[in-house]
């Protein structure tokens, strides 16, 4: 478990917002200087509220978005480095790194049959020897995600949301990847189907030794599937740790808030629990607050938090957080 598959250093992604004659060109700082490592065979969960940059981080890691700055290293080889001006051709890496999107109906080309969608990647990476082999591969892939062979000739709109997401997963698996970014793969699905898909992802991981970056806004799902969890706030990583440790002993004030909002099945316990409510809105990533980005809403914010940005530091074994309060003990 200790082999590093993917390593990112100070990765940033800004989106330009068009300025005009009277307004200067601005940037949405969607991801700001995030560093983390993903180990072979693990599932790293990534949580945070809407708009905190989880999805952007996921897409930037596999370079669907071109990073603004930073370094990405895959299996020891740099695939992007802004300082050394490295930006390798991604085609060979598209075989190794795949992504499952949030909205299954939007992420499948409506003009193509399921067979074509799954088969296209096989053609691009020349993974099959002939027509018959191609058919067999598509059949096997559909089978793997619990779809029938005859589904190959149908169009995406003829399927339910859960089935569409299975097509999306089969499509990602087609190139036999090592690493998959699961970008909120279950958020758009019915609750009854969510668990099926999560279980399937877990089974596939066990059978194929896959590594996942699992993005979700629902910490209870992430807690279930992940080995480690990273918490993001306004484009930055604020806490990172082992799943159980992070959920039972959150040390960053934002993580504590997030966890206190998870509904409990037992109403007695739920009533007894103290919910931490944050005041104010999430600040705009166009103009993020200086110092600690959380200081505008943090109940414990001090002068130092307003002035100085905290760095991510280790406070327990493998448990990192970025908060000034922790340094003071």
């Amino acid at each position, binding site marked *: 478990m200790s082999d590093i598959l993917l390593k990112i250093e100070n990765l940033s992604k800004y989106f330009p917002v*068009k300025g005009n004659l009277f307004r200067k060109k601005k940037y949405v700082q969607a991801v700001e200087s995030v560093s983390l490592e993903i180990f072979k065979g693990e599932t790293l969960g990534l949580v945070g509220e809407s708009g905190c940059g989880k999805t952007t981080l996921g*897409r930037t890691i*596999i370079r*669907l978005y071109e990073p603004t700055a930073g370094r990405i290293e895959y299996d020891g080889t740099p695939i992007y480095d802004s300082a050394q001006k490295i930006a390798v051709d*991604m*085609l060979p890496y*598209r*075989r190794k790194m*795949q*992504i499952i*999107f949030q*909205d299954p109906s*939007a*992420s*499948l*080309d*409506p*003009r193509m049959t399921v067979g074509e969608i799954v088969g*296209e*990647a096989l053609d*691009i*990476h020349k993974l099959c020897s002939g027509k018959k082999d191609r058919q067999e591969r598509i059949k096997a892939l559909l089978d793997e995600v619990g779809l029938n062979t005859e589904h190959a000739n149908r*169009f995406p*709109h003829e399927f339910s949301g859960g089935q569409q997401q299975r097509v*999306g997963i089969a*499509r*990602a698996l087609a*190139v036999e990847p090592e690493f998959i970014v699961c970008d909120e793969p279950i958020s758009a699905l019915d609750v009854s189907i969510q668990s099926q898909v999560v279980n399937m992802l877990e089974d596939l991981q066990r059978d194929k030794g896959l590594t996942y970056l699992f993005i979700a806004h629902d910490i209870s799902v992430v807690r279930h599937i992940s080995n480690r969890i990273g918490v993001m706030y306004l484009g930055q990583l604020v806490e990172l740790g082992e799943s159980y440790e992070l959920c039972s002993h959150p040390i960053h004030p934002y993580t504590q808030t997030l966890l206190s909002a998870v509904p409990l099945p037992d109403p007695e316990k739920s009533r007894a629990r103290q919910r931490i409510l944050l005041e104010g809105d999430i600040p705009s990533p166009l103009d993020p607050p200086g110092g600690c980005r959380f200081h505008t809403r943090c109940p414990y914010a001090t002068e130092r938090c307003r002035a100085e940005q905290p760095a991510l530091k280790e406070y327990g074994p493998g448990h990192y957080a970025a908060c000034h309060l922790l340094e003071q003990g």
Partner: protein
Amino acid sequence: MTGYIVKRIVVAFLTLLLIMCITFLLMNAVPGSPFLTEKSTPEMIARANAKYGLDKPLYVQLFNYIKSYLQGDLGTSLKMQEGTSVSRIIFHQGKFTLSLKLGVYALLLAVIIGIPLGCIAAYNRGKWIDGFLRVMTTVGVAVPTFVLATLLLVTFAVKLQWLPTLSGSLPDAKSYVMPVISLSFYYTCYVAKLTRTSMLDAINQDYIRTARAKGVKTRALILKHALRNSLIPVITYLGPVMAGIITGSFVVESTFSVPGLGKYYVQSVLNRDYPVIMATTVVLSALVIVMNLVVDIAYKIVDPRITLTEKED
């Protein structure tokens, strides 16, 4: 599918019937008569009216029109080519073919040039080429056909003398150039604008990201994934354009002296040549209806999500 087409044909007949009624009423609402000249006396007009049945009550005249149309008879011209059958004027004297040729070439040009221009603009969004194309297409949509036609005429026929001033019955390739360009320029620009907008819409869709994640190359991404998904609005636009391009060719046909149907249509209205007005209107309406049907069937081919027959639920 067959049931759907049969249904559409029945509706098409009813539509044509309605169009005939409206055309008839409008024709008769306009003052004047095909026989009214400076020299004609009231007796002469009355005699001519009696000869062609124009003295009968209006509902009888309308009924006669419908009856003869059902028999495939489009009537005879009252004035412009007195006594000649209208179907002969439209189809056998080459008027329809001339307009159709111009129209088809103009449409082809609009599609072949317009769609790629739209793709280029969308792909290079915000860059100078996009800005250039935006200005060009906006100008193209705004400039009236007669201005463009005259400019072409002055430049290439009068000053440079590369092309003939009179295109006539389009005897050679040279004579096509200016009429086709002036006829299609507006549509080319419009198609380019339309393609750009719907292409930009498609490019931002998730399935384009999926394709990129698969490793699809940029060219295939644009042609295979984005373009196919952005053609619907363009196809919708092209159906009515086909008919419009033929009737709308009046200005172009006049400027380049092409004796086509568009020109003849307008002249027939000015001359109150009732049977000719009626026949041209019906023929062009039928063309619009057929093109709309073709467009609806083309939808089905372009987008599998569209079902032609209504669902039962």
